[in-house]
């Protein structure tokens, strides 16, 4: 075996890659195709499912029936992405340029939420944002807010929860691209009489854009699939496409509809990722994860 590889050194990387790629083909690619097939099934869990192209109507029925939830998911994901961007940029800027020896500590705090259970974090916000919780309770008792004012069970709570959960995915890529900027460019701009605002507009911001795009994608994608925040912090009026997919699959056993909805969601997202990767590559995206 080793002697064989010595004669054909080109085979070694393929051999190293083969197990991981085979696994991903078997349990990522193949299930996705299986889902496409399942979306064209008819039948029930009890009687078994039958495949037919004639079942393509499932797609139009599903889109018709759940267009509200689809649009709501897009809206909430977009708003959460903008909120994350506005909150994350100043923080990433501070960590990159102003943190000094605290930089590592600050970066660690950014990812610290990932070390607590995801569900417990969402439930913690339920405690904080609760009708008589830490935030609203005191404001209500001094009369600054009416008694029936609430954040929980509103779109604001859901968007807040989504933004919190995916916030680190925005901070990290922006930080990485800010950190890469050659600060001498900013000094040069200042030597050429640019004020701090102009230097930021013309140098820092454009060079940070790859990080901004990567972060936006890394927040928008998981936000599109959310159902946990909508379920725990929202109400029936804030149901997202994720909630529909989850309940069609796990409560109603309506696999064809659920598969059709999942497939449309996946196709939309993968199209966005491919376009992004073609234009900007995947380096910045990976910096938000690795």
């Amino acid at each position: 075996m080793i002697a064989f590889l010595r004669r054909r050194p080109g085979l070694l990387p393929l051999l190293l890659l083969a197990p991981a790629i085979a696994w991903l083909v078997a349990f990522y690619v193949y299930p996705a195709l299986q889902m496409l097939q399942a979306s064209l099934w008819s039948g029930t869990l009890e009687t078994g499912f039958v495949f037919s192209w004639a079942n393509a109507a499932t797609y139009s029925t599903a889109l018709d029936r759940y267009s509200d939830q689809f649009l709501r998911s897009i809206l909430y994901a977009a708003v959460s992405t903008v909120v994350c961007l506005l909150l994350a940029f100043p923080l990433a800027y501070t960590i990159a340029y102003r943190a000094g020896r605290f930089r590592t500590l600050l970066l660690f705090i950014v990812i610290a939420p990932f070390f607590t259970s995801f569900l417990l974090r969402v439930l913690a916000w339920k405690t904080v944002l609760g009708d008589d919780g830490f935030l609203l309770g005191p404001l209500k008792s001094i009369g600054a807010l009416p008694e029936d004012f609430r954040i929980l069970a509103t779109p604001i709570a859901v968007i807040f929860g989504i933004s919190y959960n995916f916030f680190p995915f925005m901070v990290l890529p922006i930080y990485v691209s800010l950190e890469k900027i050659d600060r001498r460019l900013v000094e040069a701009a200042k030597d050429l009489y640019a004020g701090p605002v102009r230097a930021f507009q013309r140098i820092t911001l454009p060079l940070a854009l790859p990080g901004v795009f990567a972060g936006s994608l890394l927040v928008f994608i998981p936000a599109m699939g959310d159902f946990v925040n909508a379920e725990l912090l929202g109400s029936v009026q804030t149901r997202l496409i994720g909630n529909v997919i989850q309940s069609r699959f796990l409560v109603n056993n309506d696999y064809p509809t659920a598969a059709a909805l999942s497939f449309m969601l996946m196709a939309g997202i993968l199209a966005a990722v491919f376009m992004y990767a073609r234009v900007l590559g995947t380096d910045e995206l990976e910096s938000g994860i690795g």
Partner: protein
Amino acid sequence: MLRWLGRNALRAYTGLALLYLLLPIFIVALFSFNDPVGKTNYTWVGFTLSHWANLFAIPGLLDSVVVSIRIAFISTLAATTLGTLAALALVRYQFRGRPATSLFIFLPLATPEIILGASLLTLFVAIGQPPFFPLNEFTILIAHITFNISYVIVTVRARLSGFDRRLEEASADLGADGWQTFWRVTFPLILPGIAAASLLAFSLSIDDFVITNFTAGRTTTFPMFVWGSARVGVPPQVNAIGTIFFVVAVSAVAIGSFLQRRRA
């Protein structure tokens, strides 16, 4: 004046942002000491240590923690092995199709978890129709290895990119064969990257809810236990377990970075 204001506004903002990040972690820990009236644990009533003293008094909680740890352990081991091999190939060799392979490996990370879970569920349903493929710890394990492989590859590769290949050449010049070079030079150099990747994989697995929810059947992992109890009221013991997980993870990271600094 303007500059002073700018700098301090940024500082104040950073403080607020850090508070925002850490507040839920603090709340989770705080409410493990709460003494709630009734089942829901959302309002502060009074301090007690009794939940910490009776950590596993809640039926099913200990089992769910054991299941989660077992799945996290096995899936980390499998994903780290497969992922490290692939990362080595991607960093150290030039071959045709390398950019496409990188994009392919990235795709599972860019797929919403709900889709990963749903498509695996469809696969398991389709395999045994009927009778259906049983959903259990084994199917959860398959799911966790799947999402962890990509995370491991990306993490190990990021740590390997500064790897100096001349060290391996030097080893070969000194008469070491390929095997010796790998174990004496390459492996010690990539070990911190592998350690970081397995820590990431372990914490992703032990905390995963969305994908597990689709592939678990009746198996209850710790996050599944939390989800199940969220409807009726999460017992403070669950907060205590969450706090223990947090402290263990943070300690592991701290020890890891300490060891690495001492080596450097």
